[in-house]
C-alpha cells in the first residue's frame, strides 16, 4: 500500500528513545515544579508563623465608623518638630494581644470589636460613682488634639496625633475620696469581641493602673481618636489611656472600667513577668529590659536608631512626680 499524502516522512518520526526521554523530561519538569512550589509555599507559611494569609474582608479600619471626623476644640503639640508617623503605620503596626501577638494582628482581626454601644463604669474611692455611655462621656469634655511620642517597651517608637481629653478632668468630675491613691483600668472581657482572650497568653482581662498624681497629670489623657478621626478598633476603640512618658503597654485599650483604690492595683504585664515589667514602666534609657537594651529606639519610618530620652522626652514635665525615688528599683 502506498503512503498517504499526509503522513510525515519517516525521517521526521521521533526516534523511540528520544520520545521516551521527552516523556521523562516532562515528568521531571512537573515533579521539579511541584517540589519547588511545595517547599516554597511551606516556607512562606512558616514565615507567617504557620497562619493563613488574612482575608482583606477581615481587616478593620479605614472603612465605616473609623472614618468619622471628630470635632477638635484645641490643639497641642508635645514633640518639638518631629514628623508624624503615617496613619497607615499607626493603624497597622501595634500590640493588642486580645487580637493576636503579631503586630499586624490587631489591624487584621479587630473587626469583631463593637465600640458602640459602650459603657464605662467608674467607681471605687469616688463620691460620684457612675455608669456612663461613651457618647455621653464624649459630650462632657471639649476634645483636644495632642501630638505625643509613643515609646514601646520593644524599642520602637512613633509620633501620634491623639484626640482625647485629660484623664484628670474626668477624675475631678467623679470626685475622688481622700482615700483614692491609685486609678485602675480594665479592658473589655468578651471573647466574642476579643477572640484571643480564649487563649491564655496573658491573664484576661487586661488591667493597668496609675498612681493618682500620675493620673491627674495634665499630660495623661484618655484618647477617643487619632488623626482627627474616631479611634480605629485596633488602636483600642472606643476609649484608651495615653501616658506618653511611660512605655506603650501602660496605654490600656478598650476601657470598660475605671476604679479608684487605696492599694496599688495589679497590672497585667507586671503579673506576667514581674522582673521585666514594673508598675511604673517609665521610659528610661538607663534601665535596660533584662533581655534587651532600652538605650535606643527605632522610630517607625526611620532607618537609624535614635537615642531614647528619659521619660520619653517629657522629663521636664513629669520628673518631679518621682523625686527621691530610686528609678532602678521602681522601674
Amino acid at each position: 500500500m502506498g503512503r498517504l499524502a499526509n503522513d510525515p516522512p519517516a525521517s521526521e518520526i521521533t526516534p523511540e528513545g528520544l520520545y521516551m526521554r521527552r516523556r521523562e523530561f516532562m515528568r521531571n519538569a512537573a515533579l521539579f515544579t511541584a517540589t519547588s512550589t511545595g517547599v516554597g509555599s511551606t516556607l512562606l507559611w512558616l514565615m507567617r508563623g504557620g497562619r493563613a494569609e488574612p482575608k482583606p474582608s477581615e481587616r478593620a479600619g479605614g472603612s465605616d465608623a473609623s472614618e468619622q471626623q471628630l470635632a477638635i476644640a484645641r490643639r497641642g503639640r508635645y514633640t518639638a518638630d518631629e514628623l508624624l508617623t503615617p496613619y497607615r503605620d499607626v493603624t497597622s503596626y501595634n500590640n493588642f494581644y486580645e487580637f493576636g501577638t503579631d503586630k499586624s494582628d490587631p489591624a487584621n482581626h479587630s473587626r469583631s470589636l463593637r465600640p458602640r454601644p459602650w459603657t464605662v463604669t467608674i467607681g471605687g474611692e469616688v463620691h460620684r460613682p457612675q455608669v456612663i455611655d461613651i457618647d455621653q462621656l464624649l459630650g462632657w469634655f471639649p476634645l483636644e488634639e495632642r501630638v505625643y511620642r509613643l515609646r514601646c517597651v520593644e524599642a520602637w517608637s512613633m509620633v501620634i496625633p491623639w484626640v482625647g481629653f485629660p484623664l484628670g478632668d474626668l477624675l475631678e468630675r467623679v470626685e475622688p475620696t481622700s482615700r483614692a491613691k491609685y486609678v485602675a483600668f480594665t479592658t473589655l472581657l468578651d471573647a466574642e469581641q476579643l477572640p484571643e482572650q480564649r487563649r491564655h497568653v496573658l491573664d484576661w482581662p487586661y488591667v493597668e493602673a496609675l498612681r493618682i498624681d500620675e493620673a491627674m497629670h495634665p499630660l495623661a489623657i484618655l484618647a477617643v481618636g487619632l488623626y482627627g478621626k474616631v479611634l480605629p478598633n485596633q488602636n483600642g476603640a472606643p476609649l484608651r489611656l495615653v501616658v506618653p512618658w511611660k512605655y506603650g503597654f501602660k496605654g490600656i485599650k478598650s476601657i470598660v472600667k475605671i476604679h479608684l483604690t487605696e492599694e496599688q492595683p495589679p497590672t497585667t504585664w507586671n503579673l506576667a513577668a514581674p522582673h521585666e515589667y514594673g508598675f511604673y514602666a517609665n521610659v528610661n534609657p538607663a534601665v535596660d529590659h533584662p533581655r534587651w537594651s532600652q538605650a535606643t529606639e527605632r522610630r517607625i519610618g526611620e532607618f537609624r536608631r535614635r537615642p531614647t530620652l528619659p521619660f520619653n522626652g517629657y522629663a521636664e514635665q513629669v520628673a518631679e512626680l518621682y523625686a527621691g525615688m530610686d528609678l532602678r528599683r521602681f522601674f
Partner: protein
Amino acid sequence: MRRAGPLPWLKPGVFVGALVPLAAILFRAWRGELGANPIAQALNQLGLIALVFLVAALACTPLKTSFGWTWPIRLRRMLGLFGFSYALLHVSTYAALDQVLDWHAIWEDVTRRKFILVGFTAFVLLVPLAATSTRGALKRLGYARWKRLHRLAYVAPALGVMHFTWRVKKDMTEPAAYALVLGGLLLLRAGVYLRSRPSAPLQPE
C-alpha cells in the same frame, strides 16, 4: 549522554523552593510591603527560616532510619548550607541594617544580652560546618574527625531555639513548636545511638 541519577528533580526543586523566602522578603522590601518596621520584619523572618533549615537538615537521618528513605540524605548538605546562608543573612541584617555597624553597640548586645549571645554562638558554630561541607574537606579531615565536628549540627539549632524563646515577649507557641520538633529528632538519634552501643558484658552475681 550522561544519565541523571534517580529523582533528578529533587535537588533542583528544593533548591529553588529554598530561595522563595529570600525572594519574597526582597520583593516585599522593594514594594514597601514589609510593614511599618521592615528591618525588624526581615530580621525575624530570616532568622526563622534559618532555624527551619537547620531543623530540616537534622530530620534527614531519622527519616532514613525510621522509614528507610534514602532521598532525604541527599538533601542534607544543601539544607544545612541553606540554614547557614539564612543565618548569615540574619546576622548581617542585624549588624548592618539594625545596628548600622555600630560595633560598640553590637559588642554590648552580644556580651550583655543572653539571647543575642546564644544566637551569635549558634551562628559561630555553623561557620566551621559550612567551611567543611565539601567532599574535599571531608577527605582532608578524615571521616571520624569530620563526623565529630559535624555533631555541632545538633548544638546550633538547639541554641537557635533558645535564642527564639528568649526573644519572644510572651506567646511561646511558636518557639515551643520548634523545640518540640527538635527535641523529638534528638530523642530519635539518642535512641539509635544507645541501641547501637555494645552492651556491657553481664557480670556473674
